[in-house]
Protein backbone atom coordinates (compact mmCIF):
# COMPACT_ATOMS: atom_id res chain seq x y z
CA UNK A 1 0.00 0.00 0.00
CA UNK A 2 2.79 2.42 0.88
CA UNK A 3 4.22 2.06 -2.60
CA UNK A 4 0.79 2.62 -4.17
CA UNK A 5 0.35 5.83 -2.14
CA UNK A 6 3.79 7.04 -3.14
CA UNK A 7 3.43 6.13 -6.81
CA UNK A 8 0.03 7.72 -7.36
CA UNK A 9 1.13 10.88 -5.52
CA UNK A 10 4.09 11.22 -7.87
CA UNK A 11 1.90 10.47 -10.90
CA UNK A 12 -0.66 13.15 -9.99
CA UNK A 13 2.05 15.80 -9.68
CA UNK A 14 3.65 14.56 -12.91
CA UNK A 15 0.31 14.73 -14.74
CA UNK A 16 -0.33 18.25 -13.42
CA UNK A 17 3.18 19.18 -14.58
CA UNK A 18 2.56 17.80 -18.09
CA UNK A 19 -0.77 19.63 -18.25
CA UNK A 20 0.94 22.88 -17.21
CA UNK A 21 3.50 22.62 -20.00
CA UNK A 22 0.81 21.85 -22.58
CA UNK A 23 1.45 18.15 -23.12
CA UNK A 24 -2.23 17.22 -23.11
CA UNK A 25 -1.96 13.66 -24.44
CA UNK A 26 0.92 12.86 -22.07
CA UNK A 27 -1.02 14.31 -19.13
CA UNK A 28 -4.11 12.26 -19.98
CA UNK A 29 -2.12 9.01 -20.05
CA UNK A 30 -0.53 9.74 -16.66
CA UNK A 31 -3.86 10.80 -15.12
CA UNK A 32 -5.36 7.51 -16.34
CA UNK A 33 -2.55 5.53 -14.68
CA UNK A 34 -3.02 7.49 -11.43
CA UNK A 35 -6.79 6.90 -11.60
CA UNK A 36 -6.24 3.15 -11.84
CA UNK A 37 -4.03 3.18 -8.72
CA UNK A 38 -6.47 5.42 -6.82
CA UNK A 39 -9.27 2.97 -7.63
CA UNK A 40 -7.19 0.08 -6.25
CA UNK A 41 -6.33 2.02 -3.10
CA UNK A 42 -9.99 2.97 -2.57
CA UNK A 43 -11.04 -0.68 -2.93
CA UNK A 44 -8.41 -1.87 -0.46
CA UNK A 45 -9.29 0.84 2.08
CA UNK A 46 -13.00 0.06 1.75
CA UNK A 47 -12.33 -3.64 2.36
CA UNK A 48 -10.44 -2.66 5.52
CA UNK A 49 -13.38 -0.57 6.68
CA UNK A 50 -11.51 2.74 6.34
CA UNK A 51 -14.22 5.43 6.09
CA UNK A 52 -11.90 7.72 4.17
CA UNK A 53 -11.71 5.46 1.12
CA UNK A 54 -13.90 8.08 -0.56
CA UNK A 55 -10.90 10.45 -0.79
CA UNK A 56 -9.16 8.03 -3.14
CA UNK A 57 -12.37 7.12 -4.98
CA UNK A 58 -13.06 10.81 -5.62
CA UNK A 59 -9.43 11.33 -6.62
CA UNK A 60 -9.82 8.44 -9.09
CA UNK A 61 -12.93 10.12 -10.55
CA UNK A 62 -11.09 13.46 -10.79
CA UNK A 63 -8.19 11.76 -12.58
CA UNK A 64 -10.55 9.91 -14.98
CA UNK A 65 -12.16 13.26 -15.75
CA UNK A 66 -8.76 14.81 -16.50
CA UNK A 67 -7.96 11.77 -18.67
CA UNK A 68 -11.26 12.39 -20.52
CA UNK A 69 -12.50 8.95 -19.54
CA UNK A 70 -15.95 10.25 -18.74
CA UNK A 71 -17.67 6.88 -18.39
CA UNK A 72 -15.11 5.73 -15.81
CA UNK A 73 -15.41 9.06 -13.95
CA UNK A 74 -19.21 8.79 -13.88
CA UNK A 75 -19.03 5.18 -12.66
CA UNK A 76 -16.67 6.12 -9.81
CA UNK A 77 -18.87 9.05 -8.76
CA UNK A 78 -22.12 7.08 -9.03
CA UNK A 79 -20.66 4.43 -6.75
CA UNK A 80 -19.90 7.14 -4.16
CA UNK A 81 -23.51 8.36 -4.28
CA UNK A 82 -24.56 5.15 -2.53
CA UNK A 83 -22.23 5.81 0.41
CA UNK A 84 -22.96 7.90 3.48
CA UNK A 85 -20.50 10.79 3.30
CA UNK A 86 -20.04 14.25 4.79
CA UNK A 87 -22.59 16.69 3.37
CA UNK A 88 -19.92 18.87 1.77
CA UNK A 89 -18.44 15.84 0.01
CA UNK A 90 -21.88 14.82 -1.29
CA UNK A 91 -22.28 18.30 -2.73
CA UNK A 92 -18.92 18.08 -4.50
CA UNK A 93 -19.79 14.66 -5.90
CA UNK A 94 -23.03 16.00 -7.38
CA UNK A 95 -21.23 19.04 -8.76
CA UNK A 96 -18.51 16.91 -10.37
CA UNK A 97 -21.07 14.45 -11.72
CA UNK A 98 -22.86 17.35 -13.39
CA UNK A 99 -19.57 18.38 -14.97
CA UNK A 100 -18.92 14.83 -16.20
CA UNK A 101 -22.43 14.64 -17.71
CA UNK A 102 -21.93 17.93 -19.52
CA UNK A 103 -18.70 16.53 -20.97
CA UNK A 104 -20.45 13.30 -21.91
CA UNK A 105 -23.30 15.07 -23.75
CA UNK A 106 -21.43 15.94 -26.95
CA UNK A 107 -20.22 12.33 -27.24
CA UNK A 108 -23.74 11.02 -26.66
CA UNK A 109 -25.05 13.45 -29.28
CA UNK A 110 -22.52 12.22 -31.84
CA UNK A 111 -23.50 8.61 -31.09
CA UNK A 112 -27.20 9.45 -31.49
CA UNK A 113 -26.71 11.34 -34.72
CA UNK A 114 -24.42 8.65 -36.13
CA UNK A 115 -27.11 6.06 -35.51
CA UNK A 116 -29.50 8.00 -37.76
CA UNK A 117 -29.32 7.36 -41.49
CA UNK A 118 -29.33 11.00 -42.50
CA UNK A 119 -26.45 11.91 -40.18
CA UNK A 120 -24.35 8.75 -40.38
CA UNK A 121 -20.71 9.70 -40.63
CA UNK A 122 -19.28 6.29 -41.41
CA UNK A 123 -20.39 3.32 -43.39
CA UNK A 124 -20.66 -0.40 -43.00
CA UNK A 125 -22.05 -3.08 -45.34
CA UNK A 126 -25.50 -2.42 -46.72
CA UNK A 127 -27.35 -2.20 -50.05
CA UNK A 128 -25.94 1.26 -50.71
CA UNK A 129 -29.21 2.57 -52.00
CA UNK A 130 -29.85 4.91 -49.13
CA UNK A 131 -32.98 2.98 -48.19
CA UNK A 132 -31.42 1.15 -45.29
CA UNK A 133 -29.80 2.67 -42.22
CA UNK A 134 -26.67 0.67 -42.96
CA UNK A 135 -26.34 1.73 -46.58
CA UNK A 136 -24.49 4.98 -46.59
CA UNK A 137 -21.01 4.35 -47.91
CA UNK A 138 -20.00 4.96 -51.49
CA UNK A 139 -17.79 1.85 -51.36
CA UNK A 140 -20.87 -0.34 -51.17
CA UNK A 141 -23.00 1.53 -53.66
CA UNK A 142 -21.31 -0.13 -56.58
CA UNK A 143 -21.33 -3.59 -54.99
CA UNK A 144 -24.93 -4.27 -53.94
CA UNK A 145 -24.47 -8.06 -54.19
CA UNK A 146 -21.51 -7.98 -51.81
CA UNK A 147 -23.35 -5.70 -49.43
CA UNK A 148 -26.37 -7.97 -49.45
CA UNK A 149 -24.21 -11.04 -48.80
CA UNK A 150 -22.45 -9.40 -45.89
CA UNK A 151 -25.68 -8.04 -44.46
CA UNK A 152 -27.20 -11.52 -44.59
Amino acid at each position, binding site marked *: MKELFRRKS*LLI*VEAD*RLKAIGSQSGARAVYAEAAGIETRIAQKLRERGDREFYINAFSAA*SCWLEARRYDAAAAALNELRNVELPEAVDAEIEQTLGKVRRQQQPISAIRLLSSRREFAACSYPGPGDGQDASGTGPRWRGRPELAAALAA
Partner: protein
Amino acid sequence: MLDGRWCIRYYAVVPMDIREILTTHPCIHPVVADSTAGALAHHHISPVELKVGGNVVDARLEVSWTTYDESLHTTFQRRDIIEQGAIGVACLLLASYTDKRVTEVAKWGERADYYVGRSEGDRKEMLEVSGTDEGDLERRTREKRAQLLSNPHGKSGYVVTCRFCEPSASFLHERYRHERGDVL
Protein backbone atom coordinates in the same frame (compact mmCIF):
# COMPACT_ATOMS: atom_id res chain seq x y z
CA MET B 1 2.82 34.53 21.56
CA LEU B 2 1.30 34.88 18.09
CA ASP B 3 -2.38 34.72 17.12
CA GLY B 4 -3.25 34.10 20.76
CA ARG B 5 -1.25 30.87 20.81
CA TRP B 6 2.22 29.96 21.93
CA CYS B 7 4.75 29.18 19.27
CA ILE B 8 8.34 28.02 19.36
CA ARG B 9 11.00 30.69 18.87
CA TYR B 10 14.25 29.55 17.32
CA TYR B 11 17.20 31.87 17.84
CA ALA B 12 19.58 29.72 15.81
CA VAL B 13 19.41 29.66 12.02
CA VAL B 14 18.45 26.14 10.93
CA PRO B 15 20.26 25.06 7.75
CA MET B 16 18.35 23.02 5.18
CA ASP B 17 19.31 21.86 1.69
CA ILE B 18 16.48 21.86 -0.83
CA ARG B 19 17.28 18.30 -1.97
CA GLU B 20 16.27 17.13 1.49
CA ILE B 21 12.68 17.71 0.42
CA LEU B 22 12.88 14.49 -1.56
CA THR B 23 14.42 12.37 1.20
CA THR B 24 12.10 13.64 3.92
CA HIS B 25 8.96 13.58 1.77
CA PRO B 26 8.96 10.45 -0.45
CA CYS B 27 5.57 11.37 -1.95
CA ILE B 28 6.93 14.62 -3.36
CA HIS B 29 7.86 14.81 -7.05
CA PRO B 30 11.44 15.97 -7.88
CA VAL B 31 10.02 18.92 -9.85
CA VAL B 32 9.00 20.44 -6.50
CA ALA B 33 12.63 20.59 -5.32
CA ASP B 34 13.75 22.06 -8.64
CA SER B 35 10.97 24.63 -8.58
CA THR B 36 11.83 25.69 -5.02
CA ALA B 37 15.44 26.31 -6.04
CA GLY B 38 14.27 27.98 -9.28
CA ALA B 39 11.83 30.28 -7.46
CA LEU B 40 14.55 31.42 -5.05
CA ALA B 41 17.38 31.53 -7.62
CA HIS B 42 15.35 34.02 -9.66
CA HIS B 43 16.09 36.60 -6.92
CA HIS B 44 18.94 35.24 -4.80
CA ILE B 45 22.07 33.15 -4.69
CA SER B 46 22.39 30.18 -2.35
CA PRO B 47 22.14 30.18 0.66
CA VAL B 48 19.13 32.31 1.51
CA GLU B 49 17.80 33.14 4.96
CA LEU B 50 14.05 32.59 5.05
CA LYS B 51 12.22 34.52 7.75
CA VAL B 52 9.47 32.29 9.17
CA GLY B 53 6.53 33.61 11.19
CA GLY B 54 3.10 32.37 12.17
CA ASN B 55 1.72 30.33 15.05
CA VAL B 56 4.04 27.31 14.67
CA VAL B 57 7.46 28.90 14.85
CA ASP B 58 9.19 32.25 14.83
CA ALA B 59 12.49 31.38 13.22
CA ARG B 60 15.00 31.79 10.46
CA LEU B 61 15.68 28.94 8.06
CA GLU B 62 18.80 28.91 5.94
CA VAL B 63 17.84 27.39 2.61
CA SER B 64 20.60 26.24 0.29
CA TRP B 65 20.84 24.53 -3.07
CA THR B 66 23.64 23.50 -5.37
CA THR B 67 22.16 22.68 -8.76
CA TYR B 68 18.68 22.39 -10.18
CA ASP B 69 17.09 21.77 -13.56
CA GLU B 70 17.31 25.27 -15.04
CA SER B 71 15.24 24.23 -18.07
CA LEU B 72 12.18 24.66 -15.90
CA HIS B 73 12.45 28.42 -16.49
CA THR B 74 11.84 27.86 -20.20
CA THR B 75 9.23 25.10 -19.90
CA PHE B 76 7.05 26.43 -17.07
CA GLN B 77 5.30 29.72 -16.58
CA ARG B 78 6.65 31.67 -13.62
CA ARG B 79 3.40 31.25 -11.65
CA ASP B 80 3.70 27.44 -11.95
CA ILE B 81 7.29 27.55 -10.65
CA ILE B 82 6.19 29.73 -7.73
CA GLU B 83 3.26 27.45 -6.92
CA GLN B 84 5.47 24.34 -6.90
CA GLY B 85 8.23 26.23 -5.09
CA ALA B 86 5.80 27.15 -2.31
CA ILE B 87 5.02 23.45 -1.84
CA GLY B 88 8.77 22.87 -1.50
CA VAL B 89 9.01 25.59 1.16
CA ALA B 90 6.11 23.96 3.03
CA CYS B 91 7.95 20.62 2.92
CA LEU B 92 11.11 22.26 4.30
CA LEU B 93 9.16 23.88 7.14
CA LEU B 94 7.35 20.66 8.04
CA ALA B 95 10.62 18.72 8.06
CA SER B 96 12.49 21.39 10.04
CA TYR B 97 9.97 22.28 12.74
CA THR B 98 7.49 19.39 13.05
CA ASP B 99 7.57 15.60 13.09
CA LYS B 100 5.12 15.49 10.17
CA ARG B 101 5.51 14.96 6.45
CA VAL B 102 3.48 15.23 3.26
CA THR B 103 2.14 11.68 3.11
CA GLU B 104 -0.13 11.79 0.09
CA VAL B 105 -1.19 13.85 -2.90
CA ALA B 106 -4.75 13.31 -4.11
CA LYS B 107 -6.75 14.91 -6.87
CA TRP B 108 -9.87 16.73 -5.72
CA GLY B 109 -11.66 18.24 -8.67
CA GLU B 110 -9.14 20.34 -10.56
CA ARG B 111 -6.77 20.86 -7.67
CA ALA B 112 -4.24 18.63 -5.95
CA ASP B 113 -4.75 18.14 -2.22
CA TYR B 114 -1.77 17.53 0.05
CA TYR B 115 -2.19 15.38 3.15
CA VAL B 116 0.11 15.53 6.16
CA GLY B 117 0.84 12.93 8.81
CA ARG B 118 3.54 11.13 10.74
CA SER B 119 3.91 8.13 8.43
CA GLU B 120 2.89 7.10 4.93
CA GLY B 121 -0.84 6.52 4.65
CA ASP B 122 -1.49 8.83 7.64
CA ARG B 123 -3.65 11.68 6.39
CA LYS B 124 -4.94 13.15 9.57
CA GLU B 125 -4.23 16.70 8.44
CA MET B 126 -4.08 18.74 5.25
CA LEU B 127 -1.75 21.33 3.82
CA GLU B 128 -2.74 24.54 2.03
CA VAL B 129 0.01 26.40 0.24
CA SER B 130 0.40 29.62 -1.70
CA GLY B 131 3.43 31.46 -3.02
CA THR B 132 4.18 34.81 -4.56
CA ASP B 133 7.21 36.67 -5.87
CA GLU B 134 6.43 39.96 -4.15
CA GLY B 135 2.69 40.04 -3.51
CA ASP B 136 0.71 40.55 -0.33
CA LEU B 137 1.44 37.65 2.02
CA GLU B 138 -1.19 38.54 4.62
CA ARG B 139 -4.05 38.45 2.15
CA ARG B 140 -2.89 35.10 0.76
CA THR B 141 -2.57 33.72 4.27
CA ARG B 142 -6.15 34.78 5.11
CA GLU B 143 -7.46 33.21 1.89
CA LYS B 144 -5.61 29.94 2.37
CA ARG B 145 -6.60 29.74 6.03
CA ALA B 146 -10.24 30.13 5.03
CA GLN B 147 -9.75 27.49 2.33
CA LEU B 148 -8.24 25.02 4.79
CA LEU B 149 -10.98 25.60 7.34
CA SER B 150 -13.68 24.96 4.75
CA ASN B 151 -12.27 21.66 3.51
CA PRO B 152 -15.05 19.10 3.00
CA HIS B 153 -13.32 16.39 5.07
CA GLY B 154 -13.36 18.36 8.33
CA LYS B 155 -9.60 18.06 8.72
CA SER B 156 -7.24 20.38 10.55
CA GLY B 157 -3.91 21.23 9.01
CA TYR B 158 -1.16 23.61 8.06
CA VAL B 159 -1.17 26.78 6.01
CA VAL B 160 2.09 27.89 4.41
CA THR B 161 2.36 31.06 2.38
CA CYS B 162 5.69 32.36 1.17
CA ARG B 163 7.26 35.22 -0.70
CA PHE B 164 10.39 34.62 -2.74
CA CYS B 165 11.61 38.18 -3.47
CA GLU B 166 12.12 39.04 0.21
CA PRO B 167 12.38 35.45 1.44
CA SER B 168 9.72 35.05 4.09
CA ALA B 169 7.03 32.56 5.00
CA SER B 170 4.00 32.31 7.21
CA PHE B 171 3.59 28.90 8.86
CA LEU B 172 0.25 28.30 10.59
CA HIS B 173 -1.38 25.29 12.18
CA GLU B 174 -5.16 25.57 12.19
CA ARG B 175 -7.79 23.41 13.79
CA TYR B 176 -10.98 22.66 11.95
CA ARG B 177 -14.20 24.18 13.33
CA HIS B 178 -15.40 21.21 15.37
CA GLU B 179 -11.94 20.68 16.86
CA ARG B 180 -11.33 24.26 17.95
CA GLY B 181 -11.49 24.79 21.65
CA ASP B 182 -9.46 21.63 22.19
CA VAL B 183 -6.24 21.99 24.14
CA LEU B 184 -3.38 22.51 21.72
